[in-house]
């Protein structure tokens, strides 16, 4: 399936891409469209675009929505959702010390990458590493 999101990906979209590829749709292809695009591509599922199904809902990030909609059940993924909730949204209560660091690293990755495709691959590596670390129980 094709998936479309706004260009210049950050913490939530890198995480969502990793989640889609690894847990939801291993053959996923990703399209990056400018943020001011009024009409969405017809042959692709939009995500992390305001007003679409797979996006922020309430006080939760897109990663959280994808987990819920696809009924992916994994405690480590739930924790990552909670980390991204704090990294990507303004929260009154913070319980995930990893969140601000993860946000900064993902922003930095986009800055040093030539385009979103390169950023995507690097972002995926970061999430793979985060997952492994949390799984080891030392996160």
């Amino acid at each position, binding site marked *: 399936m094709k998936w479309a999101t706004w260009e210049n990906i950050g913490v939530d979209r890198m995480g969502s891409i990793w989640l889609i590829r690894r847990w939801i749709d291993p053959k996923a292809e990703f399209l990056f469209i400018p943020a001011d695009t009024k009409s969405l591509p017809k042959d692709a599922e939009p995500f992390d675009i305001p007003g679409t199904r797979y996006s922020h809902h309430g006080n939760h990030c897109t990663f959280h929505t994808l987990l819920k909609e696809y009924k992916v059940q994994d405690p480590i993924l739930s924790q990552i959702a909670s980390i991204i909730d704090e990294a990507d949204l303004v*929260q009154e209560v913070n319980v995930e010390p990893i969140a601000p660091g993860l946000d900064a690293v993902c922003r930095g990755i986009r800055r040093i990458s030539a385009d979103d495709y390169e950023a995507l691959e690097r972002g995926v590596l970061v999430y793979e590493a985060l997952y492994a670390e949390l799984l080891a129980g030392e996160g």
Partner: protein
Amino acid sequence: MSSWLLLSYKLPTHPSALRVYVWRKLKRLGAILLNETIWVLPDTSRTAEHFQWLATEIQERRGTVNLWRSSLVLGLREEELIDQFKKHVDGEFKGLLKKLHEKNPDLAKLSQEYQQVIGKDYFRSEIGQQVRAKLLELRGETK
């Protein structure tokens, strides 16, 4: 000339908890309310994302919202607006600095509060730098 983000919104009268919720988020972001109508933030990729998602949340809750990217033409001077942002965090930084000078300050708690305030310190407050230096100094002393 700097770019600013402006947000104005209207929420349904009920539930009143929603109004408090949105207001708290805006305060948390360090946005400034101008003329009791428009919330302002400096334009960065981070603030733009936060405002955008807050706007989406307001729409989701049946409110109406507008978000602009703009530059000042008339009225406030840019420095005055920046001063308002500084004054806002300076108040909180001063409170922290005062507590840090008391006897046996709770460093763990105060450093957490410091982290919350620097999240909205968009123009690098001098007093914020002092709080940071004091925290580091006290950390060294207790070792």
